[in-house]
């Protein structure tokens, strides 16, 4: 049952990705101006010969369906186009930068869920206590602060006032030839500020959400049943309530993943983190569309993968869903 669910879920994911490719194609066609120029990128140093080559490559003289077909078959073969500025295939360009983005996004996700739920659960025990108040205030503030501005404030703070964390890049130049352990700690050291900046918004939201969800669960009939059979407070809280309270967090975490990637884009720009976000930013400034659309493609793929994982973990956590398709 679950295996077939998994297969169907992946098939659906691939369908969504096909949609993204078609959307990319449509965006190029819909953009004002000559699609060949759009593909080449305005800063790509275009000449007539190059444009002609692009027209031939993408079949731009052929009817639209044929063009779509050519575009699709290119993508299926892993060809997302050429970045004329970097003089590299877009796929190569992105694959070099997707790792740091995944590292940043996953670290932020784990941080925000773990710390957020911890705060929320503790706050739920005393709905009118000081921690509950703090969680609400923190969540409201975390929601309202622009993520890039938090990053900038942290850069100012840690660059000049407390220079204990690096505010730029992912690795130190002087450790380029160091051993793997030193490198690991170096990356972790660089990761602190970007990951924290990104995590803080979601951390606040998860804290508030898990507080609400926990309070909801603590008022439910089966918690009363657990108490009626003499369960201890710890068991009530962490065994009976937590797993049920985590379900809405899981849902939201899945839905937020796209926003997390959006946030990563801004954070990477602020901290010069060498990921897809920086690439997208650089490419957009140079009007380098194939790269930008390639980033959109890969980012969408990450969201699709995250959604599949969310669905699977949800089915694991909630037995009520297991029998269903």
């Amino acid at each position, binding site marked *: 049952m679950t295996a*077939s669910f998994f297969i*169907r879920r992946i098939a659906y994911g691939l369908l969504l990705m096909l949609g993204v490719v078609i959307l990319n194609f449509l965006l190029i066609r819909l953009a004002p101006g000559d699609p060949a120029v759009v593909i080449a990128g305005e800063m790509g140093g275009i000449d007539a010969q190059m444009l002609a080559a692009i027209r031939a490559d993408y079949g731009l003289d052929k009817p639209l369906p044929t063009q779509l077909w050519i575009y699709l078959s290119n993508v299926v073969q892993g060809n997302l186009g050429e970045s004329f500025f970097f003089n590299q295939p877009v796929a190569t360009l992105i694959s070099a930068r997707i790792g740091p983005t995944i590292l940043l996004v996953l670290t932020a996700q784990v941080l925000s869920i773990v710390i957020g739920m911890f705060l929320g659960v503790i706050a739920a025990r005393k709905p009118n206590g000081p921690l509950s108040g703090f969680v609400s205030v923190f969540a409201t503030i975390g929601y309202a602060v622009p993520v890039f501005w938090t990053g900038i404030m942290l850069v100012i703070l840690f660059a000049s006032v407390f220079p204990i964390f690096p505010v730029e890049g992912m690795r130190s130049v002087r450790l380029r030839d160091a051993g793997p352990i030193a490198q690991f700690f170096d990356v972790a050291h660089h990761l602190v500020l970007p990951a924290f900046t990104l995590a803080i918004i979601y951390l606040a939201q998860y804290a508030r959400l898990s507080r609400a969800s926990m309070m909801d669960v603590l008022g439910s009939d089966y918690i009363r049943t657990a108490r009626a059979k003499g369960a201890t407070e710890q068991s009530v809280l962490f065994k009976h309530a937590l797993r049920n309270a985590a379900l809405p967090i899981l849902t939201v975490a899945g839905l937020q993943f796209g926003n997390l990637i959006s946030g990563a884009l801004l954070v990477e720009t602020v901290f010069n983190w060498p990921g897809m976000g920086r690439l997208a930013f650089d490419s957009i400034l140079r009007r380098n569309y194939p790269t930008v659309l390639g980033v959109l493609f890969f980012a969408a793929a990450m969201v699709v993968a995250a959604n599949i994982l969310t669905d699977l973990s949800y089915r694991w956590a909630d037995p009520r869903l297991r029998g*269903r*398709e």
Partner: protein
Amino acid sequence: MSTVLDVRDLTVRFDLPRPSMFAARPQLEAVRAVSFTLEEGRALGLVGESGSGKTTTAMAAIRLTEAAGGQVLFDGDDLLKLSAEQMRLRRRDVGLIFQDPYSSLNPRARVVDIVREPLDLMDIGTMDERMGRVRELFTLVGLREDQLSLFPHQFSGGQRQRISIARALTTNPKLLVCDEPVSALDVAIQAQILNLLARLKQELGLSYLFISHDLGVVRHVCDDVAVMYLGQIVEQAPVATLFDAPRHPYTQALLAAAPSLKRRKSQGYTRAMQIKGDPPSPINPPKGCAFAARCPKSRQICTEQRPTLQKSDNSRVACFFPA
């Protein structure tokens, strides 16, 4: 005495989610070829446990649930064959009262508008006439005119049910469909509403299709009773006959299960008839009699063939071995 409602072979199916991507969409037969008639001025009770299809039957009969087959003759027309607009206009002749007094009134509308709305929708009378009718109805169901402009949440459960009744009567319908009208109310309030319904039936000559799981309520309100089990009528009879001499084993079990003030623990009361288990799932109904698996009288034929309703005198029963 003329027939108000004549339901023939009414069938309702619901689509269920597909078990896998390529499987056929399974269907649940909630109502299976149900037939009954309702005479003018009488109240027919549909009795059964949850999942027996009693509400679905009534809703399909007045086209609030889509029927998969059958006929519903009402005033010379087959309701199931009317166009959507014809059906909409016909709704003035059928009133409907719901179970839950808290969710059956739009919380964002004033009660005066709620009770007047049927006249607005059917475009009956002038605004003054409509308001006059609303005041008249308020008095009829025991509400006061100074409550007209209040919102539903400002009323108690019993009063809300009175508002529902007023709304159902606004367009002078011949037929009132009552879907468990008192089961959400406290017993003391139940009595108020049941007495009101009894009075209205007599004063206005209404016919009721009355759905309830409570045998006591049905005995009090209805003239005839149809007992439903798994989407079918298993027994139908005038109320006294059914309660005093039930013939279907399921009817007997229902009567044995219903608590009564006369059965006392102090007198060493033990239940005459105890049936086991839960009703079978309507998704895969058994081949034979639906009640066979729980029936103390079940024999081989009961699991192999489905009994049909057999008429005798003015009652019907679907059982191979009726009492």
